[in-house]
């Protein structure tokens, strides 16, 4: 019966309901767009930090089995360079590697390796600046599968860059926007529920006379708010995914770094967006509490 009453509330003003769903979707889309951009900028930041790090050059280090002779190492090099994701490679002899360790960590630590023979390493240089996380994993697994390869080091020692501070600021803006959108959605839903409440006021007042508790009357309104928020959030997600798939490649592709793939909103952020829509709508529904709890205005 509660569902039936909630449905009656929703359809009692179909255009207002539809308008509210669209308005909620637009509000959440604004926030979702911002989140999407921030998420992608954050990915650029992490990649750039890796690239600009002194300790981790933009490439990979492949550790080769010491049993391989020079010819086999050259063959492995050629095989790796046939993958166009790599621009160049350099063979680092064990002696040179030990010297590099001395420079980096001092003599004491490098002495630990003195008794052990270090492997031959190949320093690989990427042909493009940015690699997505998934793409990087594919590359690492491919290389690890080659015969004679002991391990691959992605060199992910990111160092903080000056940009990090500015992205942190972006996150602060995102939080402010989040609160604003939360408030807007709550007010929109509350407004519509008040309209529906006014339309059905005589019936609600009758229920009060018959002894309905304030919470009993509120329940269909909460379900109504929940439905509005959920539908609005789904519509917002649809708009966002459509935007990333259709609009970004056509409009913003030239603005993005070369080879950078603009991602849709992550699953977690999508869930958060739906949660925000539903939560704000429920808060909006609760704003009608003074109406449902006040004494009946009828005989």
């Amino acid at each position, binding site marked *: *019966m509660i569902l*039936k009453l909630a449905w*009656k509330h929703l359809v009692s003003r179909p255009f207002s309901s539809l308008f509210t769903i669209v308005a909620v979707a637009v509000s959440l889309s604004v926030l979702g767009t911002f989140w999407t951009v921030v998420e992608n900028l954050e990915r650029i930041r992490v990649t750039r930090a890796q690239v600009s790090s002194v300790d981790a050059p933009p490439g990979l280090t492949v550790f080769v089995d010491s049993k391989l002779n020079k010819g086999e190492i050259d063959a492995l090099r050629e095989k790796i360079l046939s993958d166009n994701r790599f621009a160049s490679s350099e063979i680092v002899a064990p002696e040179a590697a030990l010297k590099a360790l001395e420079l980096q960590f001092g003599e004491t630590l490098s002495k630990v390796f003195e008794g052990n023979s270090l492997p031959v390493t190949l320093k690989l240089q990427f042909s493009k600046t940015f690699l997505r996380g998934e793409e990087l994993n594919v590359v690492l697994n491919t290389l690890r599968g080659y015969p004679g390869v002991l391990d691959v080091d992605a060199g992910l020692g990111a160092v903080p860059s000056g940009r990090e501070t500015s992205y942190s600021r972006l996150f602060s803006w995102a939080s402010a926007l989040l609160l604003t959108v939360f408030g807007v959605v709550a007010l929109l839903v509350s407004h519509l529920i008040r309209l529906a409440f006014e339309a059905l006021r005589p019936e609600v007042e009758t229920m009060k*006379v*018959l*002894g309905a*508790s*304030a919470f*009993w009357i509120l329940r269909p309104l909460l379900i109504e708010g929940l439905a509005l928020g959920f539908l609005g959030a789904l519509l917002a997600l649809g708009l966002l995914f459509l935007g990333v798939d259709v609009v970004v490649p056509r409009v913003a592709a030239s603005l993005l770094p070369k080879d950078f793939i603009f991602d849709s909103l992550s699953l977690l952020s999508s869930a958060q967006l739906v949660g925000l829509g539903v939560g704000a709508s429920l808060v909006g529904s609760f704003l009608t509490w003074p109406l449902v709890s006040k004494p009946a205005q009828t*005989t």
Partner: protein
Amino acid sequence: MAGMPVVELVDVDREFTRGGERLHALARVSLKLQSGEFVFLTGPSGSGKSTLLRLVLGLDNPSKGEVYVLGKAVHKMTEAERRRLRREVGVVFQDHRLISSLNVFENVELPLLFQGLGKAERERRVLEILETVQMREHAQSGVTCLSAGEKQRVGIARALVICPRILVADEPTGNLDPVSARSLVRMLRELKGFGTTVFIATHDMGLVRDFGGRVLELVGGALPPNDLNMASKAYKVPRFFAAGQNA
């Protein structure tokens, strides 16, 4: 607790302010209704009948005085307590006030839901009371397609389904034809036998005369100390008219 009135008003005043002027809707009204009484509340429009019923139902507060229903001090209750009290009181409205989005069965079931009764018990009671008011075959019908008389019968079923100790009806026959009106009041009068106090506000003196019972007449917001003697209300043909007819 035996003999305790189910409704008691003690020196109740109700004042309203309209356009800076103070209006006395009720003035020093005192009354007691006992269990199983069948009582008519009469009086012209604006005499304070609806105000008195609102006070009994806890929908309004007295400006002065005390209101007790089922032994509880309504004038001291919170809104939530009043709503709980109303779950024990049957209410019949002049315009039936059915919920248009619900069917006949669901409308009658509503007060039982407020009481928190289980589904099986709700179903049993609703079907039984619909049978009593001869509306069982319409149980799944929408209320908008019922006639005024049928709607009123559903309204009465909704009031009776909770087995109320008090039934309050405000002009319940106002929208009915004379035959339906008498049939309805006859049914309400039968509730006396079950110990239910029936309190009906009406200005239909014909109905009051036909069914008797205790009659309280509100005049300008006040109740005379004694109940109304219906014999004094019998209309007589003027003497000059009778003389003219005989001439």
